[in-house]
């Protein structure tokens, strides 16, 4: 019970559970599209990952001697699991979701002090851990074929049994062009037949469970902006960080560098820009800092995609920027009213002079 008697005596309607709930709602359309496209295995994976996160949360909170009910109902563990599931290959085996979920909640969140204290985004840290530890399972990209999906029972065998049949998986666009490029095949050869902006916009491509429907993710992001849950600074800066260098590079050497639209519509750019980089806890808090943070995420993503060893760099980019966020905040504090940037008071004489001019 809050017994603080000092002002203000009224508070706004928004609560942490409320914020998390709105984010979950915004994720629904893209998630449903993922289910439709990748079938029952993706539903099972999604469920298993979220359950693993919630169970780990309850366990950690119990171990720390806190009230478990409150921690679960704030929705943060569900959101972590959901976001992690969105970034996993849709037919990944169940233990990928469990290992990732336990790592995300226990290691990345609670070892750092629980809600609000984690340095790294739990979903991204878990994804990076999984990618490094289980590279085969984490790169099984499925061709989206809604017509030929297994039934609910067959799907159980895929998620909890043998895994995805090899015949159905193939490389993602980013993986494909990276592989071709190492063989010396340029984009004018490797791209045709693998990329179409309209198909990619609608989500008809290989990719993680929830990252493929660029337009639905965008719609969810706009919903969050309208609801005031997230600001525009981080998503816009993120997209600019990818688009601007991609546009310049592809204009200079179109055979070597993928164009800006292809970058936006492939991999997890939309999911990350609106739902992952905007994570309150691990992003910058100052207005200027949020621009820098978003720009850094975008730029590093493009750099890793273009020159890195991995075809996709978003998780790495976000974790790198997570690590710099406290520093960014430190150096981008807003100017205090009545003071100069360096913290000294404005000089009345100067102010009056400025007015006279």
């Amino acid at each position: 019970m809050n017994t603080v008697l000092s002002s203000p005596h009224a508070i706004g309607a928004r609560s942490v559970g409320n914020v998390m709930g709105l984010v979950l709602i915004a994720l629904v359309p893209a998630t449903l599209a993922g289910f439709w496209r990748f079938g029952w295995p993706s539903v099972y994976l999604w469920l298993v990952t979220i359950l693993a996160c919630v169970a780990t949360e309850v366990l950690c909170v119990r171990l720390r001697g806190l009230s478990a009910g409150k921690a679960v109902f704030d929705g943060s563990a569900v959101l972590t699991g959901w976001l992690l599931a969105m970034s996993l290959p849709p037919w990944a085996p169940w233990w990928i979701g469990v290992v990732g979920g336990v790592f995300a909640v226990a290691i990345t969140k609670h070892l750092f002090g629980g809600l609000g204290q984690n340095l790294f985004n739990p979903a991204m840290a878990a994804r990076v851990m999984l990618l490094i530890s289980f590279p085969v399972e984490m790169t099984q990209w499925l061709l989206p074929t809604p017509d030929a999906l297994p039934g609910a029972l067959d799907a159980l065998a895929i998620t909890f049994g043998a895994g995805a049949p090899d015949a159905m998986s193939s490389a993602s666009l980013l993986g494909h062009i990276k592989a071709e490029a190492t063989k010396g095949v340029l984009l004018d050869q490797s791209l045709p037949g693998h990329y179409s902006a309209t198909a990619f916009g609608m989500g008809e491509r290989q990719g993680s469970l929830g990252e493929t429907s660029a337009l639905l993710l965008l719609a969810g992001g706009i919903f969050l902006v309208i609801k005031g849950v997230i600001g525009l600074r981080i998503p816009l800066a993120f997209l600019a960080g990818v688009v601007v260098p991609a546009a310049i590079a592809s204009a200079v050497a179109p055979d070597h560098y993928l164009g800006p639209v292809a970058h936006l519509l492939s991999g997890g750019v939309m999911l990350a820009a609106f739902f992952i980089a905007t994570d309150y806890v691990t992003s910058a808090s100052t207005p200027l800092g949020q621009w820098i943070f978003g720009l850094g995420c975008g730029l590093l993503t493009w750099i890793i995609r273009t020159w890195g060893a991995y075809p996709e760099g978003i998780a790495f980019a976000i974790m790198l920027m997570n690590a710099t966020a406290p520093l960014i905040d430190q150096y981008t504090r807003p100017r205090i009213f009545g003071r100069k940037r360096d913290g000294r008071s404005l000089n009345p004489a100067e102010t009056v002079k400025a007015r006279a001019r």
Partner: protein
Amino acid sequence: MGSPDQIPLSAASRLGRLLRRWGVHPDGRKHPAAGTEIAVLPLPPRLTLPLMQHIGAPARPIVAAGDRVLRGQMIAEAAGPISAPIHAPTSGTIAGIAEVPVPHPSGLTGPAILLDVDGKDEALETEGADPWTLEPAEIARRVSAAGIVGMGGATFPSAVKLALGQKKPIPTLILNGGECEPYLSCDDRLMRERAAEVIDGARIILRAIGGERVLIGVENNKPEAIDALAAAAASHAEVQVVAVPSRYPMGSEKQLINWLTGQEVPADGRAADIGVVVHNVGTAAAIHRALRFGEPLTRRIVTVSGGAIRTPRNLEVRIGTPLSALVDFCGGTTGEVARWVMGGPMMGLSVSNLAVPIIKGSGGLLALREEETADGADAGPCIRCASCVGACPIGLMPLDMAALIRSGDLKASVDIGLKDCIACGTCSYVCPSHIPLVHYFNYAKGELASQDKGKLRQDAIKQLAEERSARMEREAREKAEAAAARKAERERAKAEAAAKAAAKKAAQEAAKQEESTT
């Protein structure tokens, strides 16, 4: 210039407004009180007049128990340059001077004059004057004598701000009709019903400070007040009524100045340093009455509202009336009152005792139900959502300040702006984790103040001790010097005596010799 209009601002100011949208839009809840005419509250049987109703030194009583006083008669005088006298709000007999509960969240008591009301409401003969025949200094003197203090709640003695103009004319007077606190509508009703008084008061203040223009800032959720003021100001070209956005805390002095003029009050300075002085619209009306009719400040308009008040409305109340009389007049309460608040919900004080009187700065009395208060909202961990950073009108980082205070590092929180915090409550309001941020800041400010006090005390003791040892040293030295001087004196005397004796002897011997030669 009658109609509300916009002030031309530089492109930089406009861009700044776009980029930094500070503040919050709390649920106004101004109705139904704002829609109902001001009613006059009948005289209660006893008035309680605290000696401390203003910033500065408490007033000094000049009456004794048993004295009969008339309405408007001074019963306590100003004690010093920053203080304000107190006048009898009606006729009656002084019952005594006692310690009574005063409006303070701790339930502290303070000295107050108790006045038994006789119901005749006889007034002291007073005379007004034409302010345009008075010197600015005389206007300030009369405002001071009328006991007028800032009626928006700050309760700073108004005459002190009027006298600022005598050193150097202040070009701009801003009247604060923002009333950005939810529930409150006392200024709204005043502007609607007594616009001419407000405008006249503003022009009197302008004369006192030697100013050129009056800007009256009114939030755009009060269109009737804006129209009434604009009509009353129609024949006065120097008075401009400006609609400002309804956004809390627009009525904060620094924010209103910035919005209306584009200027920023320096952090270490005052509004007068940039040629602006701000008064509340209620203060302007009080100054009008003091100058025109010689009437001291003995009553004010109070909004009685909140979900638990049966018929919320605005009342004109004599200073010193117990809160319970206001509640009774408004039909009492319905349902359980979770919290009583004097002032607005964002910056008001919670009170526990309805015997507490209305004082000069009380603009509202709210009976809040549980769902209207922050009660029952458990504070959770900070999720660094930065809502507080975006909402802070000063540009502070409340989340970091609170984290530093929690870890006991008060000095570091000062380094990132604790002392610039105006305690407006915006950050606590928007916090989704319901962290009582302002509570942290007030605690830290109080703690630092007491540390400073303790340090001053320590310094004073240290200085005294040093002075004492210096004095002892000096005395010892002086003693030694005196002893040495005495010794030297003795030796000199001895030597002198010896020399004298030798001279005598020599003289004797010489005489003897002479004798022997003759």
